């Protein structure tokens, strides 16, 4: 059953359109990430769900209730802000208790709930402090505590980890996953960090310029990107996108570009402009029917990134660190044909083509 439903939701600020026409159904208990580059409308989407922004068109449902006209306090949601938005003059305990207090819950019950949330988040020793006396990670936990204490249906998180250092971020990521597992509530998590989205989510909604590009499980988004944008956005280093064209070859078709020629099984039309997507780990240097020129070699320790020239275009290749490549040298290479992606160069849509190395 869908817990959160966006139906044809559009949001415009004056003439600027932040969200174009969003259809999104999020299941009960799911951890969903809204992922996309800066300015793509993630925050706006979340704020509309929270009731802090109102959709220009369309309908938003939480549970079986249309919430378009429901004030934020009555939507059965809790939100963790990027800036945490802790009340500066209240102690940690008062911050966490505040949503209960505003719902008229008595002192004794409040204290008990604050204590239990503090235990979950290991905030017990900090309850009397003011927010400014806490580190970033501790503030983050207090903000989480203030959301947890109310036991809402849906948790909204807007880039909650972006103010933390790398190590703490990894730690909090694990804690959030654990928390979600324990609570079993719906989490909607905004981020522009694909690592966060991929590692934490049940499903990822990739957005671009106010449009939903793809909504699916992390591995699905990675292995079957729906279009050129998703293909280029997901994965680090990014997928190599090589433009070419389909030409008749023998009885079938071939994908042809400078320095590359692949036989194409069924699908596609002769003359169609096609972009080939190859992940850095799916290029094998050392042997094969094609030739690349090594331009840059970047050892990172556990792997080495080679930037090579394939028919006039740079491509990123991920290789084992034990082989040495001389800059400027030519090296033969092959591609893993079962793991190639193809997109229509004009529309950007994914094409289901089967590739094969040329028989030689």
């Amino acid at each position, binding site marked *: 059953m869908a817990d959160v439903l966006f139906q044809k939701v559009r949001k415009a600020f004056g003439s600027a359109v932040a969200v174009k026409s969003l259809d999104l159904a999020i299941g009960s208990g799911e951890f969903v990430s809204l992922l996309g580059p800066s300015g793509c409308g993630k925050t706006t989407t979340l704020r509309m769900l*929270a*009731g*802090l922004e109102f959709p220009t068109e369309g309908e938003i449902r939480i549970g079986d209730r249309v919430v378009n006209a429901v*004030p*934020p*306090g*009555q939507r059965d*949601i*809790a*939100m963790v*802000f990027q*800036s945490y*938005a*802790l*009340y*500066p*003059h209240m102690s940690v305990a008062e911050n966490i208790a*505040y*949503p209960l207090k*505003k*719902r008229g819950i008595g002192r004794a019950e409040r204290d008990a709930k604050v204590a239990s949330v503090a235990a979950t988040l290991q905030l017990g020793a900090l309850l*009397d402090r*003011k927010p400014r006396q806490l580190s970033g990670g501790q503030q983050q936990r207090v903000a989480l505590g*203030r959301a947890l204490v*109310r036991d809402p249906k849906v948790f909204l998180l807007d880039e909650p980890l972006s103010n933390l250092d790398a190590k703490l971020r990894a730690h909090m990521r694990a804690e959030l996953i654990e928390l979600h597992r324990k609570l079993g509530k719906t989490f909607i998590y905004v981020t522009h960090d694909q690592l966060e989205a991929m590692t934490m989510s049940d499903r990822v909604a990739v957005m671009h310029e106010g449009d939903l590009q793809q909504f699916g499980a992390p591995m699905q988004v990675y292995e079957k990107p729906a279009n050129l944008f998703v293909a280029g956005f997901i994965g680090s280093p990014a997928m190599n996108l090589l433009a070419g064209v389909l030409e008749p070859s023998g009885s079938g078709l071939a994908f042809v570009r400078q320095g590359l020629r692949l036989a194409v099984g069924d699908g596609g039309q002769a003359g169609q402009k096609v972009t080939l997507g190859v992940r850095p780990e799916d290029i094998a240097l050392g042997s094969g029917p094609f030739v690349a020129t090594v331009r840059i070699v970047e050892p990172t320790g556990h792997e080495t990134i080679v930037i090579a020239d394939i028919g006039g275009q740079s491509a990123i290749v991920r290789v084992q660190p034990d082989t040495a490549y001389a800059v400027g040298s030519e090296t033969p290479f092959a591609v893993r044909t079962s793991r190639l992606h193809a997109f229509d160069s004009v529309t950007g849509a994914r094409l289901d083509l089967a590739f094969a190395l040329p028989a030689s």
Partner: protein
Amino acid sequence: MSGNPLDKRYAVLGAMLIAPTVLVFCAVIVYPLVSALYLSLFTIFTPTLRGSFVGLGNYAYLVNSPEFWRSLWNTLLWTICTLALQIVFGVAAALMLHQNIVFRSLARSLILFPYFVSTVVAVLVWRWLFNDLYGVMNHLMLMAGLIKMPLDWLGSMPNAMISIILVGAWKYFPFVVIAVLARLQTIPDALYEAAKIDGAGAWSRFVDITLPQLRDVLVVVVLLRAIWDFKEFDLIYLLTGGGPIIATQTLPLMVYKDAFGLNDMGRASAVAVSMMLVMLSFMVLYLKLAGRDERESQR
């Protein structure tokens, strides 16, 4: 440490940099203060500035003078009432101007108007409005049926006191508006949004977020305005001249009257020194209270 020649050079440089401030401070603050203290120990005939030493005689006179106590009471009454009105209306106006209303920038400059107008001009306008024979105020209130007879706004009590308090509030509330508005604009929106999600209504958001955030600026505003209102001279002098009789005479007016009306500079100085003592003790008390709350809220 002190043996280091560089430290010595810095010490000399420091002293040189402070010196001008210290000199100016001595010339404009310490000297008048000391000389007021000194003068208050004499009876001095103002036109000739000659007189004889009387020790604490002037102070003894003041302690037994009903006029002094009445003026002190008037000063406190005026300061507290006009300050309270300034704060209430100032904060209210700032909150209103902080909203996205149409003509906001126009409204903002209009509201500062009373603060910019020179006191003399403002008072002349108000005297005209308050006039018991041809004043607009009486005219309107008669027409509205609020009063049956024209009121004597400035020449009878308690009207005169109420009038100066109201005009004082009108003239100085824009100061509160400016200070509070500046602070309001720095309160992060996210705090209000978080409170909305936590279920706080408009009133709760004001009490739980706006007021605590305004605390520091209000402490300073109350301090400054209290000092300035306590010393206010021209507005009251021009509106009522301290009258009827001495019903609205505050301490600054009494200083003026003693020095230039009764030509006794010594006693005037004694009043001025007492005024300073009263103000000082109130300020110390106030800052202690404000400081204690501050420490409590930081714990």
